[in-house]
């Protein structure tokens, strides 16, 4: 069985990310040119799969498991995007499936990748789920457009991605060529329409309804649509039709679809001039990073509830840690204070060479009421911050909010929820059967002596057997037959001669007894 391989991180340059940057225009506007880079296996590669693997990525949609990406190897054997997982497995039984549901992280990764491509041009933006548009207009190109195309492919490869690329007048047209046509080429100025003409109409990504209407008219190729009169198309097929028609004619759509939100992930990075080992040195380097990050958040009117610190270590695997706030913040002092607390207990295995700071859980900034006298401390640490700090220190498994859960298995009748997962108001549950005040995490084996009628006479929990004064039961509970942990138990409340009250059960399958809890 193949295992996922680790993928090099895309951060190779400490360049500012300027998605909206435009080259300075001098004289008459030059014809705009774009490099479109498509990474057909991007979604698989970011999960660590290579094109040779026999893998598909799956998403749950309306209770169906749908294939959203397949490796070329799987595709060669018949698996296709859009199939259900069962369909794909019926064709390729050994096909491995991985359920994915991280659109925000995926978009963030693509954004990070876009950042890497800013070495080719300052204006890079993601298009679609797996492609980047790099504006070349006015950018000095080493080796010309062909050179930058080759450089883009090399860069993608170096970052661990299979890529195809096209240079053309329009990035969406370039994407169509990358996806459905002949890629890795430079389409001459004004030649996009000709290049697009033989492509299937699907290359222009029509909505299903429009696709059906175009098919009825026999418009199966881009060229067929381009040949129609623009006004006729607009009248019949509205905005979407007109946009496709414009693109089919090799021109930029009047109203291109809005790019995906770029600010899903706000981050800052610094390469250290020399490796550092001490926390103080790290904090020194972190301070300007926090200032930059805070400024970026402020510029976007955002705040963060969670910071991820990523340290690249010399000759060691990178180290990541997360620190959280009780409520979203962006003040650089708050950011550095939080990191300071988190780093206090940290021991580095090797000197750090670079620091990357990511703002996770980014929300709209809602402001914060400060105290009048002391702007920084308001009568002690807020509960939220305290809980966040405890969670950072002890882990989510140790700091949680217990919640009721409808399950007949006593150990599953509650669950742990993170503090920040605020419950919806629910009506109080109906009174249920009495349960011990203390339910043990693991039932403890118990020796029970019974009389011939089955009455429990004594129990031996640790060393000595203790006489049972009274027993109430059995309460029979069974279920979970569909899960890996089925249960079928007879519970008894026993009052022992030493004053304790235990909740014990007999496993009806094995006949063994266990103590599961106690009353105070």
């Amino acid at each position, binding site marked *: 069985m193949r295992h996922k391989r680790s993928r090099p991180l895309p951060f190779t340059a400490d360049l500012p990310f300027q998605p909206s940057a435009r080259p300075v225009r001098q004289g008459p506007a030059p014809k705009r040119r774009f490099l479109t880079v498509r990474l057909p296996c991007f979604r698989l590669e970011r999960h660590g799969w290579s094109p040779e693997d026999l893998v598909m990525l799956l998403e*749950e949609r*309306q*209770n*169906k*498991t*749908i294939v959203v990406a397949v490796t070329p190897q799987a595709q060669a054997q018949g698996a296709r995007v859009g199939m*259900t*997982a*069962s*369909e*794909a*497995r*019926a*064709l390729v*039984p050994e096909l491995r499936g991985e359920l994915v549901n991280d659109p925000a992280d995926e978009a963030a990764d693509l954004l990070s990748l876009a950042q890497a491509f800013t070495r080719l041009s300052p204006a890079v933006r993601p298009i679609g789920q797996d492609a980047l548009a790099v504006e070349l207009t006015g950018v000095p190109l080493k080796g010309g457009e062909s050179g930058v195309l080759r450089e883009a492919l090399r860069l993608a490869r170096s970052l661990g991605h299979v890529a195809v690329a096209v240079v053309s007048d329009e990035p969406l047209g370039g994407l169509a060529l990358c996806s459905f046509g002949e890629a890795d080429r430079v389409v001459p100025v004004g030649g996009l329409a000709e290049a697009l003409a033989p492509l299937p109409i699907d290359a222009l990504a029509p909505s299903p309804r429009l696709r059906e*209407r175009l098919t*009825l*008219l*026999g*418009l*199966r*190729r881009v060229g*067929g649509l381009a*040949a*129609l*009169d623009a*006004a*006729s198309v*607009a*009248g*019949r*097929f*509205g905005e979407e039709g007109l946009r496709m028609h414009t693109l089919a004619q090799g021109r930029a759509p009047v109203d291109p679809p809005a790019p995906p939100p770029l600010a899903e992930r706000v981050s800052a990075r610094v390469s250290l001039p020399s490796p550092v080992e001490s926390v103080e040195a790290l904090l020194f380097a972190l301070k300007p990073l926090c200032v930059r990050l805070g400024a970026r958040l402020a510029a976007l009117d955002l705040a963060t509830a969670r910071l991820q610190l990523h340290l690249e270590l010399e000759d060691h695997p990178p180290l990541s840690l997360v620190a959280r706030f009780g409520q979203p913040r962006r003040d650089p002092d708050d950011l550095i204070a939080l990191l300071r607390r988190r780093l206090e207990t940290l021991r580095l295995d090797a000197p750090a060479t670079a620091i990357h700071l990511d703002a996770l859980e980014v929300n709209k900034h809602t402001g914060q009421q400060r105290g009048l006298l002391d702007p920084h401390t308001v009568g002690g640490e807020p509960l939220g911050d305290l809980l966040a700090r405890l969670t950072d220190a002890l882990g989510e498994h140790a700091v949680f909010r217990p919640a009721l*859960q*409808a*399950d*007949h298995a006593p150990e599953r009748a509650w669950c742990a929820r993170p503090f920040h997962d605020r419950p919806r108001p629910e009506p109080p549950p109906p009174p*249920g*059967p*009495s349960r011990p005040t203390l339910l043990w995490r693991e039932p403890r084996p118990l020796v029970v002596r019974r009389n011939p009628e089955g009455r429990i006479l004594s129990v031996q929990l640790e060393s000595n057997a203790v006489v049972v004064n009274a027993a*109430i*039961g*059995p*309460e*029979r*509970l*069974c*279920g979970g*037959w*569909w*899960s*890996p942990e089925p249960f079928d138990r*007879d519970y008894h409340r026993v009052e022992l001669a030493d004053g304790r009250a235990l909740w014990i059960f007999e496993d009806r399958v094995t006949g063994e007894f266990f103590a599961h809890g106690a009353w105070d």
Partner: protein
Amino acid sequence: MTSTAQRWVEPWATTAFSLLEGASMPEELVAAAAEQGLDAIGVADRDSVYGLVRAWKAARSTPNLAVLHGATLTVAATAGPPRELAVYAMDEAGWGDLCELLTRAHAETPKGEGLLRLGQLLDRQNGLVALAGADWARDGAAHTPELETLRETFGDRLYLCAARALRPDADAQNTRLLDALSRRLGCVVLASARPLMHSAARKRAQDVLTCVRLGLTIDNAGHHLQPNAERHLKGPAALGQLYADRPDWLKNGGAFAERVNFRLDQLKYHYPREIVPEGQSPMETLRDRVRAGMAWRYPEGVSDGLVHQIQHELALIEELDFPAYFLTVYDIVRFARERGILCQGRGSAANSLVCYALGVTSVDPAQQRLLFERFISRERAEPPDIDVDFEHERREEVIQYIYGRYGRHRAAMVNEIISYRPRSAVRDVGRAMGLSLDQVDRLAKDQDWWDSKGPKPERAASCGVDPNDPRVRLTLEITTEILGFPRHLSIHVGGFVISEEPLRERCPIEPAVMENRTVLQWDKDDIDAVNFVKVDVLALGILTAIRKCFDLCREHHGHDLDLASVPREDPFVYDMLCRADTLGVFQIESRAQQAMLPRLKPRSFYDLVVEVALVRPGPIQGGMVNPYLERRSGKVPILYAHPKLEPILERTLGVPIFQEQVMEMAMAVGGFAPGEADELRRAMGSARKRGGLERLVRRLVDNMEREGIARVYAEQVAKQIMGFGDYGFPESHAASFALLVYVSSYLRRYFPAAFAASLLNAQPMGFYPPRHILDDLRRHGVEVRPLDINRSCWDNTLEPDGRVSPLAGGKAGRVAEGVALRVGFRQVSGLGEASGRQIEESRRRGAYTGVGDLARRTGLRRDELMLLARADALRPFGLSRRQAAWAISGLYAGPLFAGLGHDDDDAPLPEATAFEELQQDWLSTGLSLDAHPLGLVRPRLDEQGVTRASDLGLYESGDVVEVAGVVVLRQRPSTASGVLFMTLEDETGLVNLVVWPKLYEAERRTIRHEPMLRARGRLQREGEAVSLLAQHFEPVDVGAVPTTSRDFR
């Protein structure tokens, strides 16, 4: 310890007929109760008596167990959720109360739910005892005004019921409440386990059914599931242990059970009498009607034999007091005739001269030597069962007539319980088990339509579902467990019960989902068991087709026909049948029948009676087919195993083919009295459901052997009788069907265009889709004209073909000519009838001149116009499909662009290829007059050596050939030992294939799921009929042409 006088009673059990709640069938609960030594079990399903007849019948074989007849009512409370109240009928009046209450409970609630207001309940309760649980105590306190009201009204007929389930807290709380209520109200408390299942092993199924009912998955069902498996039926020991502290509660059950005395055998039912004119008795009226009918049927006079027969029948009808029933059926048939609705009785009624005289049946019994005792017998003293077929499109008129005539309180249709079959079961269980929809879908679709034993784990992998996944394994196991459980309710195809007294006091009546229908809570087997009289008002598509064909013959060929006037015994019709040229003919168009026709070579009406009955499981499994054919062809002499059998078997050449013959044989050489022979008949009719036939058959075989009949022969007869247990025709039924076979054959032979148009206009019906009907018509030389916006009507129509004047056929083999068939708008997929008729209506003012004119005058929506464009119906405007679609979309251009004034009528749209045209044809109408997908790839198929269907005649029997085609039919008769019959269609015709089970299993996915196949096989020839014994299949890819196969059992 309890005393020996203790009577053990489970007072409140729920069966699987409390839909998706109970997890055991009534028979299972009754059997378990008897086995565990209970004295009585109260069956009280939720708001219904759906399962009660089954429980009552099951209890007949357990004499020591009493089944208490009741139901659990859902009663609205003034505060809080509705409460459950079990009520039981103490006597017949109590049963009337119970039925009335259930009828009221369903009158205003959605299907499947019942709710009764307390006032409604108090209004009808004199004959009932009631059981209330501790949940009636409001807020956990013994204060309960509703219960006090019930106590005031019911008095000591109100009981309280404990329901312990090894939940100490709840049990103790309920015990306290019940004690308090008992003290306060003075009610007696009964002990119960409130079983939902007969055994704890059904807990899994009960959990899953709960999930299905609530629309949950097993993972999130939480506390909706029972906390343990204790809601199962408990015997004396377990009940004694459960209520060890309250032996008095256990003892109270005996006295309670003694009060509940009503059993369904006490139910009285009377047939209505109002169809009798004032001052006449029903018998007098019937005699009058029969007298008039005999004069109508036999205008040239009635023979002595017929007079004797009619007197015999009338005497028996009078003796058994059935005249009112015959008059009712007569009245229904009379109504249909007056409305011009074609109808014909089928089944054993065709044995009756009275039915023939009344016009209920159309086959002259005098010509058929039919057995009246098969229809009505003194020994049986059961009401006769008359089934009448009506045109399927007009049956609703007949149904509403019956409701109108007798009122909805006295007439209702019979229920049909829809049970879990593998496909529905795997869907519901899979969803409840949390499988994803695609997994469930693939598992469900993979279930073979003939399979009744549940999904096979080894096939799950081929669906892309891992059979080793625990969830999948559990899904398959539980699916098998719930097969046969009731899932939901429907309406029987046509069964009607009418009564003299209010029917709703005999059996609860519910409104059906279908508008203007009301149904009983019992199905047809239940109705039979309680001796209610049922009239089957059935729908038959071929009657619609025949009536429409008669209309077309009259209109276009000047030929006035009806069922009686179709010329009989026409040799040209039989010539056609001998060639198996029967596509569209009633009953004999299936693959198996077509294969039989060239072997049997029918030359008379009686041959058709035999043909219809011969290709049935009884004769096939009994091995009677080849002996009959060999005797018929003269290869084997006609011999009789016993001289007494000669008069019985003479007309079928010594081979028993019909049920009546088996009855007569049983009487002649099997030592059976007539009543016993009838018992044998009934056992044959119900063996598939209930068994019990073997004992009679063994006795018959022994007696035959004692009479000197060879054991081998007797065993063969026995085998056939067992086969009848699955499906077998009585001769009378075969004769009724044979008449329709003959009439439809005649119409097909002489009026092919009219017959084809009528078949199309009566769809859906028959084995073949419209495409095949039209292809067949064209092969018979009739022109088929395409859809035309200015010529087509909603129906498929006939129009002069311009060659010769339309001729009346039917003389000396001359086929009616001069007409072409014009395809109608009803063939356009997605177009509604109202729109189609609107096109016709608006066209009366002149032909449409263009797309705009059409849109303006008809008011059709854009999508409807697009359907017409897609169907190529706008070609008369000089527009191709694409140009028409372009023009239509231009009509709806947005206002922003309206002023541009751009003339874009001749937009440069690509021309459609032949394949694209074909694709659109099949998508929009399911048929193409120009091409066939196989024709488009024929050059490739030629290179591969694939033979055309039309060229199969060039090969010899035994040659191995390859064919290819669209799969149009898969049929797997239950009698064929797992053999699958398939039909492929190429551009030249149809190819029949036989697929052995081994090949099917080996190549199942291809055979079962691929729409187009290439098949290699060995050619078999039987007369003019050719088929291939398949050896190997491969899919054929010609692109995305939508095809569907009709798959049959």
